């Protein structure tokens, strides 16, 4: 009796002879394809892998390899199929990352973030996953998930300037300029002379009306990249803020010659024209600025002033309302996120 039950147990565990042979045949093929991959015989490996996948499910490494080769060959659909299989069957974070990249390349930020959320459930401390989440979110102008990823990244990888830079940009997108400046200064300290950081810093400082400091940062950026339109436009804004209207106008016009819809350059033109009391021209420039950067509160404030000077009370009040609405939105988002993500001072910088 006892012997019989042992045999039954074994039968459940051991495959039948036919299954064993099939498995052995598969194993041989898999080993062969692994060798091809190691020898970088990608074309042969791709053909072999396609056949193997058609015959049955692939193990994790080969499913990922097939996806990689299909992607390299520009065949997105079969690549995605393998990636989804690896993600579902093996909980592969590599597959999820690749899927998120594909979503992001299609500008489907929501899908990419959802895929990354699944990746973070499996690998919550992965720098690669957090970093991709931050980048995808920022590219989709979703600063909140970006900041949620960047807070741990700047803590765990405190010496990486890029994460502090991205954090600064996220806070800027959110409208919290003091915190943005803090992050960007840290990025600049860790990796000086990086034009993107300096431009971000200049923009944030301008927003805080710290135009003198902004000008220093932007001049440094322009020393490194003399033709950068963002830097020139931001420098124009700094000059305008400092009352140096001629320089500001000249720089803004330089930008508008190359990009007539540039939001910051149009804002500067609006500021300059307002100070020159050429309100109608100011309104035109500021409307262009609002079109280019609808989230800007400053533009709506200036527009409300310009409209008021022109006697258009209705438009003036509408812009004033928009200005207040933007400020309120910023305040709410910032308060919520500050509580969640401000560093608590564990590690001392």
């Amino acid at each position, binding site marked *: 009796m006892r012997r019989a039950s042992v045999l039954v147990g074994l039968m459940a565990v051991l495959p039948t002879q036919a299954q064993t042979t099939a498995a052995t045949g598969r194993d041989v093929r898999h080993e062969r394809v692994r060798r091809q991959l190691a020898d970088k015989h990608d074309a042969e490996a791709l053909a072999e892998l396609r056949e193997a996948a058609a015959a049955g499910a692939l193990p994790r490494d080969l499913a*990922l390899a097939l996806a990689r080769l299909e992607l390299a060959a520009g065949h997105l659909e079969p690549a995605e199929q393998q990636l989804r299989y690896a993600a579902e069957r093996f909980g592969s974070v*590599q597959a999820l990352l690749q899927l998120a990249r594909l979503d992001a390349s299609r500008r489907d930020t929501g899908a990419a973030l959802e895929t990354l959320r699944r*990746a973070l459930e499996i690998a919550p401390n*992965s720098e690669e996953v*957090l970093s991709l989440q931050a980048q995808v979110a920022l590219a989709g102008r979703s600063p909140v998930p970006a900041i949620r990823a960047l807070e741990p990244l700047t803590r765990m990888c405190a010496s*990486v300037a890029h994460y502090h830079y991205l954090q600064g940009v996220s806070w800027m997108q959110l409208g919290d300029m003091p915190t943005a400046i803090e992050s960007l200064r840290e990025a600049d300290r860790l990796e*000086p002379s990086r034009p993107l950081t300096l431009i971000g810093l200049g923009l944030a400082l301008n927003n805080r009306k710290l135009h003198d400091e902004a000008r220093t940062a932007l001049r440094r950026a322009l020393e490194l990249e003399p033709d950068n339109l963002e830097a020139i436009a931001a420098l124009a804004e700094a000059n305008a803020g400092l009352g140096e209207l001629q320089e500001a106008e000249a720089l803004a016009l330089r930008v508008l010659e190359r990009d007539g819809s540039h939001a910051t350059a149009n804002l500067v033109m609006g500021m300059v024209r307002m100070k020159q009391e050429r309100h109608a021209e100011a309104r035109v420039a500021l409307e262009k600025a609002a079109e280019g950067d609808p989230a800007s509160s400053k533009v709506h404030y200036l527009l409300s002033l310009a409209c008021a000077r022109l006697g258009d009370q209705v438009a003036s009040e509408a812009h004033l309302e928009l200005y207040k609405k933007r400020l309120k939105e910023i305040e709410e988002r910032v308060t919520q996120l500050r509580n969640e993500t401000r560093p608590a001072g*564990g590690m001392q910088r």
Partner: protein
Amino acid sequence: MTPRVTSVALVIFFLADPASPGEVAPGLSAVLDRAVAAAETSLREGEREVAESFYRSALLEGWLLEGSLEAAAGRLDAARDAFRQASSSAVETQRALQALAVVELRSGNKAEAVRLLTRVVAQAPRDSGARLLLADALVESGQPQQAVQELEEARAIAPDDLELTFVLATGYLRLKKPEVAERLFAKVLEGRPIPQTRVLIGRTYRDFGEYERARVELRAALKQDPTVRRAHYHLGMLAVLDEGVVRLEEAIGEFQAELKLEPRDLVTSLRLGMALVEAQRHAEALPHLELATSADPPPADAFLYLGRARLAMDQPQEAVAALERGLELAKSELRIGSGHYQLGLALRRLGRHDEAARHFSEAERYSTERALNARERLARYLSGGDGDGDAERKSAVSAALAASPLSALAPDERDRLRRYVTNTLARSYVNLGVMHAQAERPARAVDFLEQAARLVPDFPQVQYSLGVTRFNAQRFEAAIEPLSRALAESPENADLRHMLAMSYLNTSAYQNAVDLLQDDRARAASPPLQVAYGLALVRSGRAQEAQRVFSRLLAEHGDSAELGVFLGQAYAQQGDYESAVRSLLHALELQPGVAEASSSLGVIYLKQGRLAEAEAALRAELQAHPDDQRARQNLANVLELAGKPEEALSHLRTVLKAGPDSVDARYLLGKILLAQGNAADAVIHLEAAAQQAPEDSNVRYQLGQAYQKLGRPDEAQRQFDAFRALKDKRRSTTP
């Protein structure tokens, strides 16, 4: 030109479980072990992101454990460092910050503890444990009202949490609102209607001076169960605290009743002994006080009262011994003053007047004590300070620490566990470092490997991995130490020897490079190694031997342009510019545009003051090799000397874009900007240069000038002082 040694691959370090602490502290390192095991499984499966995530979890768990071990050993600074590391190891911060806050509280940094815990609570508002801790920190920092507020919020989240309700009631007692406290205590009793709950409530009332309420609860506890522990004890304490010697007999009766329930209770024995001494029943007090001295650690009071009893019983010799021991242990001024006074009396009784006088004089310093009447004295003695022994009086903080199972480990067990944790941390850092190195992020890899080397310098492979990674990151100076240590461990490893030799060569330690390469068997078959050896010979002043090496190279490998360049550089190094120029021009004839020929010519012309030719040669090098940042830097040097600062600036910015760590580029950029009157920007570059090359006197000088122009005279002076010190140092070390 530095001949490169092919990068050496680093491997992930899989270990059989090293010296598992399982038998020492079962379960204490289980979470850590699981994280490392999961990381290594993920690595084997090729899931590097998952592996990294688990390694980071391992770092978090490891540092938490390390911090707890340090805290348990009373090393608060080390505990703080460990918890800080934990707080930056992984996404989760709650536990690390809570632990850090506890350490800050224990260190007396109350405001910092409140700050940390406020953040923790903001991030996890439903964490009632964190709120409890925050309430405790608020009380400690003198904010009882805010503490109660915090507890009310916690209770709103977890209304059935009896511990929270109890602490909240305590908070109201602190705010002198006993009626509110009473209602909350009633809820606690509803939840746990046992006599021990009443004892706890009674004692808490006692602590806050609510003596009548305390008596009611303690008597109710005894009514519920006449054998309940500590009720008599607290009633005895109440009698003394409330009325002092007036109700001494009542106190003695209660302590005796407690001892009937537990005859070897050391704390009650001590209180009974003290009360008997105060009641002048010295002989009866002796056995209780003797018993109390056997506590670990022994309470000062047991000896001080024993001394008093012996003295009263005319046993001055024994009294002196007991009082001296009591004074060694005593910490409070009240006890020390009284102890000196009693000791003075005992010594005078023994005729040792001089010693007695010293103790009387000491006692004088604590004279306030003698102004107290007996009731006050006894009450103050019993209500706190040395040897109070009231182990039940615990704040959430001490409870948090005492709750750690680590505190139950013996010191040698803790040491073993600490070694295990440190090793596991090192192993995680090594593997994270290797993963970054394999992903070609050498700077990040170095960060992790340095951590591992700091923790366990002799951890297997750590010096090797660190040395190789720093070498591949071209941080040659920093690579020397770990490579030397690794080579000492594996003297036959030729790759290590070659990397070390190259590191020496790149840091001007030419003789060391020669020593390593001269007997190297692989050198003869490797032209790059031969070249390196030749260069090391040239630069260590052995030009003739170098020429033999280069000539042999030419003979064996033909008249190649590359060798011509090396030979030219070797001549230039010797100062034989004529031969150098001939060799370099010949190399260019053989292969126009051969790397470094024109730039070497440019440097020679620069040294000869032939600026126009130097400029042309360096431009030619850059035309052929636009990525040669060394040539670009030299061209910038030439342009600056030739009065073309704007073009020099442009080249320097390109150099910095390619490598922001270039000290030479930052120095020259700062110098030019300063000369152009832009001191603010100059400072940025010069400060960066000074940070990277603190021993460079020229940088210090320019930085001093920049500060001066910016109206920062103190900082300028510091830089000029550093400049002079460096100059003096150089003069004294230059023969």
